[in-house]
């Protein structure tokens, strides 16, 4: 079932890439290798080759190689800033003939394998602070290296491992704290008049005091929380003002798309126009004017969702998002039935990565999240991302296929 969903998504992605580059007056076949849909077909073909390789390989290989792969990719990441090719101000690419590869994409599954390897030991306990630090260390190393390129979007992706860590018993309070912080940040940026914000925090504190057990300790704690919230809100405004202008705008555009409609706002504005003009049923395949005529930048890579939204409308989006949700829920089901911690941990890493990419990418195209350059799994044009997601997913499927044996041999 997961394999079926994978191929469905890859196929839909492929025809959308064709739609994004389609030009009526110079119509080329979807198989034409000079256009991106043709090239994507090569990537799909090679991805199938990779799948075959993974499926025929010994399942123990991944467990055994995990740390070696991790170290290998960390070294490659270390080297990329020096030997990589600079594109758009980022040194994130390796050139291989006419194709370019992005090592950071592949580090994702290597990190997932390394985490699984680290945490498979039954004595590993995430409620212990030192163990937490070990896991975070495995994640932080590639993140730090990717930030050097610098590629904030890809670096952000590594936060998706917290979904796995949550499943594996990371204390809940961290998540409550982090989500509150995110909520507070959103309100801080959304409410431009600071006095309303401070007033709101004040009201919240009063309410908390009213509903809490009235002990001096509780009241003192809640007041301290209030002071911290105020301090955070104040300092966030301060920090946002200190950000480089282009990052500042990327954030502000979320709240007011007219900040800079022809500059930074252009991507989001045009992306929303393309998707929004799709209506309920869309304009029909290859009939989308906004994507076909290049109004949306990066429409075959990070903004590929626009093509789908414009040409297939809300119903198309519903079907596509449903396929993703089905895949993710299926993966949760698969992960939970694993007999080994290694397979389950790895499975949750896959779930986290796919979920993060998928939700952030679509949120970005509809203007719910700042523009960060991360692809839509299986959809976006590009060999690196298709390969890395394929490898990521199929290692898990391979592990799942051998779940009985793994149990028998390891324990």
């Amino acid at each position, binding site marked *: 079932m997961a394999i079926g969903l994978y191929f469905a998504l890859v196929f839909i992605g492929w025809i959308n890439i064709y739609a994004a580059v389609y030009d009526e007056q110079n119509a080329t076949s979807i198989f034409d290798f000079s256009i991106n849909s043709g090239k994507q077909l090569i990537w799909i073909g090679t991805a199938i080759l990779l799948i075959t390789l993974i499926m025929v390989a010994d399942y123990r290989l991944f467990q055994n190689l995990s740390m070696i792969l991790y170290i290998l990719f960390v070294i490659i990441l270390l080297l990329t800033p020096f030997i990589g090719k600079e594109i758009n101000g980022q040194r994130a690419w390796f050139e291989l003939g006419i194709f370019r590869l992005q090592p950071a994409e592949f580090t994702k599954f290597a990190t997932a394998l390394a985490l699984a390897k680290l945490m498979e030991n039954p004595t590993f306990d995430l409620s212990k602070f030192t163990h937490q630090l070990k896991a975070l260390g495995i994640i932080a190393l590639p993140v730090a290296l990717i930030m050097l390129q610098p590629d904030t979007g890809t670096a952000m992706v590594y936060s998706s491992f917290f979904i796995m860590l949550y499943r594996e018993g990371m204390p809940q309070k961290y998540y409550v704290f982090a989500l509150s912080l995110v909520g507070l940040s959103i309100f801080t940026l959304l409410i431009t008049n600071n006095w309303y914000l401070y007033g709101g925090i004040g009201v919240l504190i009063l309410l908390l005091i009213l509903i809490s057990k009235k002990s001096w300790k509780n009241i003192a704690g809640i007041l301290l929380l209030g002071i911290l919230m105020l301090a955070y809100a104040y300092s966030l405004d301060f920090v946002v003002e200190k950000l480089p202008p282009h990052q500042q705008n990327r954030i502000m555009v979320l709240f007011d798309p007219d900040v800079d409609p022809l500059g930074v706002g252009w991507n989001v504005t045009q992306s929303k*126009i*393309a998707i929004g003009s*799709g209506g309920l049923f869309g304009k029909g395949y290859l009939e989308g004017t906004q994507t076909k005529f290049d109004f949306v930048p990066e429409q075959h890579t990070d903004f590929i969702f626009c093509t789908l939204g414009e040409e297939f409308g809300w119903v198309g989006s519903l079907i596509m*998002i449903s396929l993703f949700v089905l895949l*993710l829920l299926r993966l949760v089901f698969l992960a939970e039935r694993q007999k080994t911690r290694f397979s389950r941990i790895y499975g949750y890493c896959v779930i986290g990565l796919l979920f993060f990419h998928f*939700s952030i990418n679509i949120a970005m195209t509809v203007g719910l999240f700042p523009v960060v350059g991360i692809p839509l799994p299986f959809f976006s044009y590009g060999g690196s991302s298709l390969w890395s997601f394929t490898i990521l997913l199929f290692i898990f499927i391979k592990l799942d296929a051998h779940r009985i044996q793994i149990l028998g041999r390891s324990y």
Partner: protein
Amino acid sequence: MYTGRSMVVAVSIGLIAFVLLGKLFLIQVTDDSYLRKAERNAIQRVVDHPYRGLVYDRNNSLMVFNDPVFDLMVIPREFSLEDTSRFCDLFDIEKEKLIEAFNAAKNYSWVKPSPLIKQISKEEFGRVQDFLIDYRGLFVMTRSVRAYPRSAASSTLGYIGEINASQLNRDSSQYYVQGDYVGLSGIEDYYEPELRGRKGVKYKLVNVRGIEKGAFKNGDLDTLSVPGENLQATIDLNLQVYGEKLMQGKRGSVVAIEPETGEILTMISAPVYDPNILTGAKFGENYQALNKDPDKPLFNRPIMAMYPPGSIFKIVQSLIGMQEGILTAKTTFPCNRALVNCHNHPTPVNLFGAIRNSCNPYYHQAFRQVINREVSSNTYKDTQIGLDQWRESVLKFGLGNRLGIDMHGEKSGSIPSSELYDRIYGEGRWKYSTIYSLSIGQGEMLVTPLQMANLAAIFANKGYYYTPHLIKAIDGDPSRIPEKFRTKNETGIDAAHFELIQDAMAAALYGTAARAIMEDIEIAGKTGTAQNPAGEDHSVFIAFAPKEDPKIAIAVYVENAGWGGRAAASTASLLIEKYLAGSISRPELEEYVLKGEFIY
């Protein structure tokens, strides 16, 4: 299977998906502003300008057509110049103007075309055509401007130009947009709805760089432009050209009408200008020059200039007098120069003699009888009643109101009413002795040359006229001209009264305008002199011919040329001969008119 924390993960996935679908629903289904923005992005409305209708003369000679001109368009992003001065030499443009035009283009759009040099003529385009390939980002757009095969009838045909702000505001149908060309005067203005045709619209798809990507919805929404309708003017182009030649170096008006239809055969406002100068790139410059010219060539004299009618008005007085039963052929008055000055002629005179000799005292006395009928014992009251009755009769001759020619800007002239004198002198403080100069066409009375020509037509028709007009047929169909041009206007004067008038007018020429007399064509005419307090009097003459079965009625005004018997009568006579005979048998008279020395 989904329990505890795995359940939380699963629910989070569903929740996020739900939020995304919700947001998508908002922008895709509930909000249609994105659809409109998408259309604004990708659909370009291209207006297809129709071909403006042509104008032919009454004999189907072409008067106005459309001539292609070329706008040099630039796409700023693709355009660059290495040798600016060579480019300027080539295209005959000043460097400053080039830079100005290029900056304007850049400000409009970096990627969409804007005009760099407007309205390059065919000839000039032929010269620079081959060099165009040397420059990237330039292309040529063809437009058309009005052109005139023969330089004639400029003030009648009018000109076209960019629509101005007030016209745009008045356009309730929202047909026009900024930059459209419309008729601004003359026939071009009056028949704008017929001539302009209908604009077509094409909806094109364009990509983000403004490059065309095919038709929107396969062109289902596109409309074709409908070319303007051709007009047939009543003008006789040969006569018009000849008349303009005769009026060279003079100021004044000529209006010739076909009496039985009201069709205007020729209408000249001198000095004339070449209609071709008010087309194309030099429009603004040339218009300014014409506007500043002290001879006011843009002032359309036949319908705008107003003069006292002078002696010619005596014919109208005679007709009203006869119709009222006050004058008959036998009515005589002495030429009493104590009343008003006159010239030497036998006295007393009857009505025929009064017209023939243009006797001022005769009309002074006759007009008193028309005005003072003793309907009231109060002289003042009696004069007031009489004047208003008389005025009613005069208005029926097409005087004192606009005739309603198919041209905007016509003046009404003026025939005084009792209210006017009440305003000037006070009620009950004026009587016949105050207003007697009206009897000989002087005083508070003004007439346009067009009205004067129409008078000649009334005399020729023996009592009726058709409103003078310039267009015979729209799109080949005579029944489409306005109804008012096909309606007979009666003066209320019995046709029988015109016999004496016509005979007297024919006879008058022997005394006052012998130059106008032709051997083969019997002509009836009357000279006049419009008094001009600012200088030499204006020379005026009206006539119709042939006297039996008239085919042409004409009024000629030559400003500051003195007595009507010389300049105006000679010009009118030549035009009548040209129209009726087709050629001129009196070269010495033609030379006399062309030489233009009438004051001696």
